């Protein structure tokens, strides 16, 4: 019981949870990132075929990373808190 009381008072004393990215900003971040993803994906589709696909790989990976964070931000702003 002493254990329980100790964690209860610790829980009350410690600073409350605060996310690294404020939740109110998430819808805007989602919009920006997903717009960038869409634009980059469009650009990817216009790239010509080449022997060493460096540009294609770079564009694709940037679009994927931005899209990854964008989708997570989108889910959170829609109310599905991941």
């Amino acid at each position, binding site marked *: 019981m002493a254990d329980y009381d100790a964690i209860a008072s610790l*829980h009350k004393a410690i600073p409350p949870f605060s996310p690294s990215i404020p939740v109110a900003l998430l819808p805007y971040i989602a919009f920006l990132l997903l717009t960038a993803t869409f634009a980059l994906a469009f650009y990817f589709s216009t790239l010509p075929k080449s022997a060493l696909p460096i540009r294609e790989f770079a564009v694709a990976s940037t679009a994927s990373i931005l899209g*990854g964070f964008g989708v997570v931000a989108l889910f959170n702003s829609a109310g599905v*808190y*991941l």
Partner: protein
Amino acid sequence: MLGFWRSSYSLFLLISLVPYVSAGHSFENTAIVRTVELGGSVVHVTTTYAVKALEDDSKIYTIALGEREHDSTSWLVAKIKGESTPLSVEERESNGNGPQLYDIKLPSPLMSGRTTNIVVETAQTHVTYPYPEEASQKDGQSLKYEADLLVLSPYDTAVQRTKIRSPFPQIHSYTEPEVEYTQDAPVTKSGATLTYGPYKNVPGSANARFAAEKQQRIAVHFSYDQPVLEITKLERAAEVSHWGANLNIQDNIHLRNAGPRLKGHFSRLEQQSQAFFQKPAPHMLPGLTLLLPAGIHDVYFYDIVGNVSTSKLRTAPSVPKGSQSNQFSVLELKPRYPLMGGWNYSFTLGWDSPLADSAGWDRERGKWVVGVPIMTTIPGTVVNEEELKIILPEGATNIEFFEPFPAIETELSTHITYLDTTGRPTLTFSYKNLTDKHSGIIYVAYNVPFSAHLKKPIAVATALMGLFVLAFVWKRVDTRIQKQK
């Protein structure tokens, strides 16, 4: 040779007598008063023992509960009268028959001749039943409560009495027993209170022989003008989200009206006329008012048919984490149909609340600590079975939990939901027969490394990259049926 066996035989005899001796005749009860507050599915019993120590340094006081009483008791706490810190109570190993003994450790040992008052509060569940068992829409509701007449104790009792208090004024009948411990009337009634006693000079009674020979059952038949509710199963899931800084709590509630079964058919005409003349039947439940935590938003209430719109919510603004505030969000909900006796209604109720209201960051240990309430109490209602699931973020490690009272079963498993790859660690607690006394908070401390936070974005990024790779390959594959010349 024989001498060796003789001495070990007498040693064995001495050792076998220890259980009877260790009940300890180091106390004497000067008075025991048991007060029973009658209710629907939950009955609260408060027993005050005025004890006098007969030996120096008496530390452990033992109380006894009869077999049936022990089976129905789901909450027991002992305190010294006037103080608020609970004492440590240990249930003794029971041998199956006879009363169940509990050892209470006194805060300071009592010297011979000193007295003290120990208050034991218990909550009993499922001890009343509707009688008559069937009632039509127009009839009233009456319950019967059965209990043991005498309070058991391993020590001699100078005087004991039991007071049974009914919340509503009408008591139809009660047992008038024949008791050898009193010269006056064994039971007296005053308004809505029955007093069984005072019974004088009851010897130590915590053994099976007393229970068989001298103990009696008493029954009280009283009217109860409120619906008797029980929740047959409560499934609560609390999901912690770090990306969304949110705690989602979802309750699947299977509600049952444990009053008298409806006799005949349900008449909507009768229901409407009762509502119009404001004379509702006492065993009919039109709706419930729930006190939900402050600071919640996005509350949903649906059942198997779909969303239930007959509800009214007044939210209260957030309160700081851990504060014992009396601010609640009030939800008045109405099931799709009024609950008559014996009817069930199952629904899902859920809400989101900011994670800052329930969780904090412990910098020293590098852990987050979240507090999840075990249930939303509905006064006077028993929860027959509860399964509480606490779903932590993906990749949580070093999980420690602290519970206010032990659960029947605890399990750590993995729960998979949106955008999960390895799944989220989930703690599952199982409970039985919870009352409003069991409303507590479970604290869980856990670590989430930074890389675990990135699991979800990386998973989505990998899927998108897969699409890009597919597009890359598609551009370079010739799918024409006829080759270009």
